[in-house]
């Protein structure tokens, strides 16, 4: 059994808003093992990004951690002071590249000056050391070193994204979380970003990756395990091969069928999308939250919330159609 880098136990994080409580992450348990790339997939608004912020303990009102525990590399960060988390956990043990990371760089600072500020916050090293560290890392990752001396607006979208990823992993965190890192990029640039992530792992700069996206074809290229999220809950998880070749939850099957790639298998079955829209999480549907859009819904689905059960070797599904 491999060791766990991250354990989240029955986590609930809600937004308290004037319109009501948004249950964006509702009773989610998630483990990330050492050495794997975990792909998290789901539609916009299903709570993927909120879950990632919660795993980092990047929690600010109106978002509240209502329940649950988060353990990163043996440290119970769900109980830690924010100040301590900032200094000892973020960037050092676990790093997050958020969805809007293309705008994370300071427009008025050259990349190298930005790096200097970021690194100094966490460790006590001289300017010279930081520069040589950054140069070495950019060289190792095959990124143009000259770009360190440029301003963000002088870089292309793909280069910016790669620079942000390189900066986030400068202090060799064990776990890197990337949230939709390639959604704004064209296919060729996307491939370069994915290659960079694999290199980070190959060179042992980081141990594990959590990759969040709504594009399953991208996960197919890099992920080892797949977790499918719907309306604030995990509905299915397992190895990439198992989940893709034999999806158990109707939502997972729908997501896979919605993939549009130029392949004979897909041409044969035609293009299908999941009907309807994801629910509002202030008033999620009763029972199984997917039942209003599900083609196989039964009377029980409206009434009883299905548990996420282990059906074999870590393969988990929450659906009344599936018997443990």
């Amino acid at each position, binding site marked *: 059994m491999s060791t766990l880098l991250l354990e989240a136990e029955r986590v609930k994080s809600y937004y308290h808003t004037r319109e009501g409580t948004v249950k964006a992450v509702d009773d989610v348990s998630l483990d990330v093992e050492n050495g794997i790339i975990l792909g998290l997939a789901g539609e916009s608004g299903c709570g993927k990004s909120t879950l990632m912020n919660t795993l980092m303990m990047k929690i600010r009102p109106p978002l509240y951690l209502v329940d649950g525990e988060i353990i990163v590399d043996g440290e119970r960060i769900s109980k830690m002071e924010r100040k301590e988390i900032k200094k000892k956990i973020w960037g050092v043990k676990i790093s997050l590249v958020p969805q809007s990371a293309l705008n994370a760089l300071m427009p008025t600072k050259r990349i190298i000056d930005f790096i200097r500020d970021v690194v100094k916050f966490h460790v006590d090293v001289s300017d010279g050391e930081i520069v040589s560290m950054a140069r070495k890392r950019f060289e190792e990752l095959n990124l143009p070193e000259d770009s360190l001396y440029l301003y963000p607006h002088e870089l292309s979208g793909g280069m910016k994204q790669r620079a942000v990823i390189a900066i986030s992993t400068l202090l060799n965190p064990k776990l890197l979380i990337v949230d939709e890192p390639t959604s704004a990029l064209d*296919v060729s640039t996307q491939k370069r970003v994915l290659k960079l992530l694999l290199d980070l792992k190959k060179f042992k700069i980081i141990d594990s990756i959590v990759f969040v996206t*709504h594009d399953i074809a991208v996960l*197919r290229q890099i992920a080892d395990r797949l977790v499918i999220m719907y309306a604030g809950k995990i509905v299915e998880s397992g190895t990439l091969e198992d989940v893709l070749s034999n999806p158990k939850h109707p939502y997972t099957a729908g997501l*896979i069928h*919605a993939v*549009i790639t*130029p392949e004979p*298998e897909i041409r044969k079955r035609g293009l*299908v999308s*999941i009907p309807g829209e994801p629910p509002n999480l202030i008033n999620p549907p009763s029972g199984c939250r997917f039942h209003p859009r599900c083609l196989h819904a039964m009377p029980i689905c409206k009434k009883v919330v299905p548990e996420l059960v282990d059906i074999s070797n870590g393969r988990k599904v929450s659906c009344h159609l599936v018997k443990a």
Partner: protein
Amino acid sequence: MLLKVKDLSKTFIVGLLRKKEIHAVRKVSFNIKKGEFISLVGESGSGKTTTSRMILRILKPSSGSVIFEGKDPWALHKIEDLKWYWKQVHGIFQDPFASFNPLYKVDRILYQTFNLLNIESDAEKEHLVKESLKEVGLRPEEVLGRYPHELSGGQRQRIMIARCYLLKPKLIIADEPISMIDASTRAGILKLFSDLRNNYGTSVIFITHDLGLAYYVSDRIMIMHNGSIVEEGTPDEIMEHPKHHYTMRLKEDVPLLYRKWKGF
């Protein structure tokens, strides 16, 4: 021939003292027949959007011509003539949020189309708006009277397409219409464009960086690189026998569901 584009070019001049010329589009030529669905595929910065903006009469070409039904849109100046062009040639853009004014209800963007149509009765207008929403798979009672931020990206883009059902343009230029939309609803929106073509004979220029999407809906694919069209053919020709090295790279870079990339 519905649209003839000949030697269309756009050069941007940047800088104040040290002037630099950027050739965004270089001598692009193509024709579109009535009811034809073509895709313009290329990476960011290849000139796809600049080309579309010149056809939409948003950006003046540096040289070359756009002829739609025998007329050059840049030679149209009278408001009736312009209204005619706007009714016939309709654009749909990448960010369905940017197309809306966030201060107004979504109804407004649909009712605005009546400025280009000759319909007087309010009951008739309301009926047409509701019908158009049904055509694009929305329930009128769920979207009318709401503000743009209350709807999902997919719903907003469907409303933009509902405008096409009201206007019945002869040519739709859709610039990355589904790249900001969830993978789970992309197919449904893509199908709406095919439906318009099949039911009303609308011609479509579909602009995308994703060869996979173009493969399913197009009659013809044109590959654009550095401002020029480097290859063109049917979807099967392009996917099975790409000739230009750039097309080959583009094809290799599309992530597939059933095949893993080499070296990954």
